């Protein structure tokens, strides 16, 4: 039977333990991503000077997940808010946390300009290939043939175009000397955590970091635990998982 345990769960220091269970759906990739991000912040010991900005969508449910200074912005406007913070306070390390809708659809103008100027900030774009909070509609990154609420016969690239590849786009336009651009996946949490750490080190050295995280959405994909990870494997074949630009990510 369930009893009160003396040993607390192994939560990162930067995670807000007081809120209890997170507000994400069962099996959501946001929990894995944020846990890895919190562990990376803990490893570098930068909790006191980190500013975390979250977008509208499923990613806004992270507003009280982390024990960091948090700002919740308008849809797609996380990028300008966070580089505004880091420009006003040169000590601060800004993290902009958004989904694929906030980064590549409504917020793509800010993403493009922040990447061209290579602002001193880290952007984390969580890509789950649909709009999760509104019920699983087609998003810019929906894979060809994927069934969603608005593409019930599978995404037809003749009509809706090809999926957006955020990391390739940012790598093509960002300043290669001070930009760290990578794509990672929640299937390998250790690798994800070390990628976040490299991104944060690059920001500490005055650079721009962009990390796209391939994530999972079991509720809107309508998959069980095994099929979810199988779908993630097909995503990893379609979206290449690698580091595109290194920047100044070496310590």
């Amino acid at each position: 039977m369930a009893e009160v345990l003396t040993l607390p769960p192994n939560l990162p220091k930067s995670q807000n333990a007081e809120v209890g269970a997170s507000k994400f759906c069962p099996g959501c990739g946001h929990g894995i991503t944020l846990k890895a991000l919190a562990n990376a912040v803990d490893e570098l010991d930068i909790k006191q000077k980190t500013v975390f900005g979250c977008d509208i969508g499923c990613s806004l449910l992270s507003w009280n997940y982390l024990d960091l200074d948090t700002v919740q912005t308008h849809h797609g406007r996380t990028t300008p808010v966070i580089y505004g913070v880091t420009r006003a306070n040169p000590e601060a390390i800004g993290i902009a946390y958004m989904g694929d809708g906030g980064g590549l659809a409504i917020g793509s103008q800010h993403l493009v300009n922040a990447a061209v100027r290579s602002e001193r900030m880290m952007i984390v774009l969580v890509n789950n290939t649909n709009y999760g909070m509104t019920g699983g509609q087609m998003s810019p990154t929906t894979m060809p043939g994927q069934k969603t609420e608005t593409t019930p016969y599978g995404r037809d690239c003749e009509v809706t175009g090809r999926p957006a590849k955020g990391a390739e786009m940012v790598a093509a336009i960002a300043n290669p000397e001070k930009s760290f651009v990578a794509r990672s996946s929640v299937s390998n949490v250790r690798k994800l955590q070390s990628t976040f750490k490299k991104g944060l080190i690059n920001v500490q050295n005055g650079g721009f970091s962009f990390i796209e995280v391939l994530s999972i959405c079991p509720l809107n994909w309508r998959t069980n635990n095994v099929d979810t990870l199988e779908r993630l494997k097909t995503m990893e074949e379609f979206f290449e998982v690698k580091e595109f630009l290194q920047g100044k990510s070496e310590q």
Partner: protein
Amino acid sequence: MTETLEYKGYKVENVAGGKADFYVYTDLCKGCGLCIAKCPKQCLKWSKEVGLFQTPAVEPDAAACIGCGACAMTCPDSAIRIERK
């Protein structure tokens, strides 16, 4: 932050040949089953205990578990802790 938080759950003692204890926090487990899919030894199964949403939590087969921690690492809600002795 001063007062200590209490967590409900259960523990399976002496997994991995008596080298570790396996803790499951029913206040945090949402029953997604990612740990079952990720387990390299396929030794996790659904438990009779229920988690946060009254869905089954998980429990390991104490003899087969090797205490690698893959389940604890992949859990989105940190509901599993493996404490090595």
